[in-house]
């Protein structure tokens, strides 16, 4: 496959062909990525986009020879015209950092915790440099300034003394210390807050352009890719399904997966009637081998799609797609996009009804040993049938609030009423009142992977909830099946253990469990943030449906304004333990009053170059 070769005009710095990575799993060889071909030109910025399990990160790691032990790569990787596939670790030493550098995903774990920043950067500087201590130090300070850290004292800090964004900047400075020709940024902002994300991305983009360096940005977010990069490789289940220039892909994706991915991404600028979710979840490459990898989830899949592994074909100049039916479905896809962009006729009444189920009044909470209160005079109301969003970055106190409402934290002052019961002191509630409160409010946690007991089957977990809330239920099994069905899962799921379910399915189970009590309000604490966008859309739709059908109130806690826009009627913006602004969602997003809200909105990813330019 000579796929991308033709798209690159000037001399390419990186050229990958026939890359295949396998994982040794016991005695089995599992495919992780296969048939990858790509090309990066000098000075070009390229994005690898895909959901978890698409193989984008593994592809990047094999380019640098940094695959984990269990993984093996075959194929050809040419860096600056030299084949680097068989390099020894010693030989790699001269290549990494100098020809190709990398920024890791998590700045909290990628810096050596016991070294000061000056050393981390200093040791990464070119080895041959005959700099003395002072000069080296000066160089470190200069490098820090390059990544926007003007305070030289940062050099003497340990990574853990810095905020996430600062750490990532130090990481970038270290990765750039040997002035690599190609920089690979592996999800450099996923672990960071939204406001920080924009700063880091614009820094990377600025440096890339200033140095005329090549860049590979790995991201799951198409908007980020469009804003940052010239070209995009869309990956799915270990394969590249589409290659295109950013603007062109944004205008018209030429693969059903790219198209679906774009659609499931909630837009910030308007509220859609319903998000388009891709059914199911990302499969393992071997399960979809021998055909189009997306076929099992594709609306347009026909027999021909699974007849053989489709190759990337150039549809238009510089536009490559692996969809064999692209010519037939192109128009269909366009129609589907138009349909999805529909705005609802009207949005339900925003005002908080007087009979709020949850009434939080000037609640404050300071954790033992903390100097700054986690909650500072917060007041929030939630009523049945409405969806209230709470938006804030990490540390804003939004999760603490949720936990206080549900009784997992004690508050320092103020009051919380749930269904008319004062729950300010949960521990002192009489049993009857506690049950009453429990059946009024339930919670869905953030991490679907650990909110189910790994030792218990789904059925056991649900049955327990059923017996807790309806002790006299005779048909527990039927009730469990009904619950599973209500969240869109087959009854057979009851027999499974959580470990055999995907994240989306687990989150559905978690919702089902919360629904057992027939709550009037469901608190969702970042309940979709750990999920892939396509699955996130499924869950958001499910919540929407429950809200509509069961007149369920939802307190939706998230950091993502776009998600809030899609689901919440009213929104509270929180910052550092305070509610800085509240009101109807559309009003807050369109005409924010508080500077912090403005900052948040500015930081929310947009698929345009302007997003990153200040």
């Amino acid at each position: 496959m000579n796929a991308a070769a033709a798209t690159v005009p000037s001399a390419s710095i990186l050229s990958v062909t026939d890359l295949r990575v396998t994982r040794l799993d016991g005695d089995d060889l599992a495919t992780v990525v296969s048939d990858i071909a790509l090309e990066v030109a000098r000075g070009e910025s390229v994005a690898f986009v895909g959901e978890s399990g698409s193989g984008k990160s593994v592809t990047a790691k094999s380019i640098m020879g940094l695959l984990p032990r269990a993984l093996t790569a075959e194929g050809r990787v040419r860096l600056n015209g030299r084949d680097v596939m068989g390099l020894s670790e010693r030989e790699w030493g001269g290549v990494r950092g100098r020809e190709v550098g990398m920024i890791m995903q998590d700045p909290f774990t990628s810096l050596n915790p016991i070294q000061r920043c000056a050393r981390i950067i200093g040791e990464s500087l070119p080895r041959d440099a005959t700099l003395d201590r002072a000069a080296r130090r000066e160089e470190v300070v200069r490098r820090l300034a390059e990544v926007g850290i003007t305070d030289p004292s940062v050099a003497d800090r340990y990574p853990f003394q810095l905020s996430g964004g600062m750490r990532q900047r130090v990481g970038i400075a270290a990765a750039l210390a040997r002035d690599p020709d190609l920089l690979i940024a592996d999800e450099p902002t996923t672990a960071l807050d939204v406001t920080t994300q924009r700063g880091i991305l614009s820094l990377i983009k600025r440096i890339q352009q200033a140095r005329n360096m090549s860049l590979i940005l790995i991201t799951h977010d198409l908007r980020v890719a469009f804003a940052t990069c010239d070209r995009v490789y869309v990956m799915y289940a270990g394969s590249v399904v589409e290659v295109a220039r950013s603007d062109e892909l944004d205008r018209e994706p030429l693969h059903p997966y790219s198209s679906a991915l774009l659609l499931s991404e909630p837009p910030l600028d308007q509220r859609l009637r319903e998000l388009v979710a891709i059914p199911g979840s990302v499969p393992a490459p071997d399960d979809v081998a021998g055909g189009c990898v997306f076929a099992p989830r594709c609306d347009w899949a026909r027999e021909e799609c699974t007849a053989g592994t489709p190759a990337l074909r150039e549809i238009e100049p510089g536009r490559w797609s692996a969809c064999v039916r692209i010519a037939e479905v192109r128009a269909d896809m366009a129609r589907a996009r138009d349909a999805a962009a529909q705005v609802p006729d009207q949005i339900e009444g925003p005002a908080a009804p007087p009979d709020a189920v949850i009434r939080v009044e000037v609640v404050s909470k300071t954790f033992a040993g903390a100097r700054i209160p986690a909650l500072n005079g917060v007041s929030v109301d939630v009523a049945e049938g409405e969806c209230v969003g709470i938006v804030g970055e990490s540390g804003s106190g939004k999760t603490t609030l949720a936990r206080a409402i549900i009784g997992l934290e004690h508050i320092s002052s103020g009051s919380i009423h749930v269904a008319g019961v004062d729950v300010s002191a949960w521990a002192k509630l009489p049993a009857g009142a506690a049950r009453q409160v429990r059946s009024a409010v339930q919670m869905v946690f953030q991490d679907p992977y650990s909110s189910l007991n790994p030792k218990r089957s789904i059925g056991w977990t649900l049955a327990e909830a059923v017996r807790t809330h309806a002790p006299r239920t005779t048909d527990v099994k039927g009730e469990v099946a009904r619950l599973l069905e209500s969240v869109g899962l087959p009854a057979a799921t009851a027999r499974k253990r959580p470990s055999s379910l995907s994240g989306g399915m687990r989150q559905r189970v978690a919702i089902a469990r919360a629904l057992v009590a027939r709550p009037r309000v469901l608190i969702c604490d970042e309940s979709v943030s750990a999920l892939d966008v396509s699955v996130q859309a499924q869950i958001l739709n499910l919540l929407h449906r429950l809200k509509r059908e069961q007149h369920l109130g939802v307190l939706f806690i998230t950091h993502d304004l776009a998600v809030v826009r899609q689901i919440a009627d009213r929104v509270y913006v929180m910052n550092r333990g305070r509610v800085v602004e509240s009101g109807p969602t559309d009003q807050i997003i369109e005409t924010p009053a508080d500077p912090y809200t403005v900052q948040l909105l500015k930081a929310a990813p947009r698929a345009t170059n302007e997003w990153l330019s200040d």
Partner: protein
Amino acid sequence: MSAVTVTEPVGERRQLSDRWPILLFIVRRLAAMVVMLALVSFLVFSLVHLAPGNPVDALLGQKPRTPETVAALTAQFHLDRPFLEQYAIWASGALRFDFGTAIQSGLPVMTQIASRLPVSIALGIFAFLLTMIVGVGLGILAAMRRGRTADRVTTASVVVGLSTPTFVAAILLLYVFAVLLSWFPAYGKGSGGLDTLWHLTLPAIALALGSCAYVVKHTRAAMIDVLDQDYITFARARGLSRTRILLTYSLRNALIPVITIGGVVLGGLIVGAVLVEVTFSIQGIGQLLVQSAGAKDLPVIQGVTMLIGVLIISINLCADVIYMLVDPRLRLGRR
């Protein structure tokens, strides 16, 4: 380079208070140690007091005695006083580091302990060095060769090593290397210097065996954990040399948890020393304890228990303090 202003807050400066947590920590631990020792001493005291037999009998042995002798000895060791008064007498002495006189030998307890401590300490340090050097070395080797033969052999040996009681190891070593092969002496502590080292080699190996397995196990786990860390990958991605990655990244980070292990190991060695000293006829404090326990020599039992208690608590305190000093995250306080 046009400067980009960073709006994020930089970590607050708190250098002055940096050292306080450690000091406070040490003071609190020392206070706890005193309470603990008081409790232990009282328990041991009552235990010995309640047990059958009389230390004077032990002293005079299977021999005729005159009532005057018995009376004089009874008075000398305050055995005629009520229990609590006896303890008070002992405790007030102990506060002045006077642990009384050994009933069996008539020597001051401190003298007797002091004369036996050097060999025990030599044995302990020898075994400790063996444990840490071999244990950490093998642990690292196994981690670096994960899944290969060297690792498998090491891991298997660890299981056997952990399951072999010290005295069994001592006897097997004694048989093979001292009896069958005559490579090493089989008893005693030798006459100082290299000769002592020579004499202590087998006991130290016997003593080190189990703890060595323990250290290998934990070092290997720590090392594997570190090798999987992102910062190692990031260091490689920056093209740092392998030596540098091994030394300043893998080793330094992996050895931080091993420091705590070191404290545990040293404590374990003190216990194991009792059995090894008996098997190899080394007259150290372990043997002194066994001997005194048999003879109900209360002052010595108390002295040795206190000593071991102080040793173990201090060792663990030291390990914790070193841990705090070595790991900046603990020293400066996370966040």
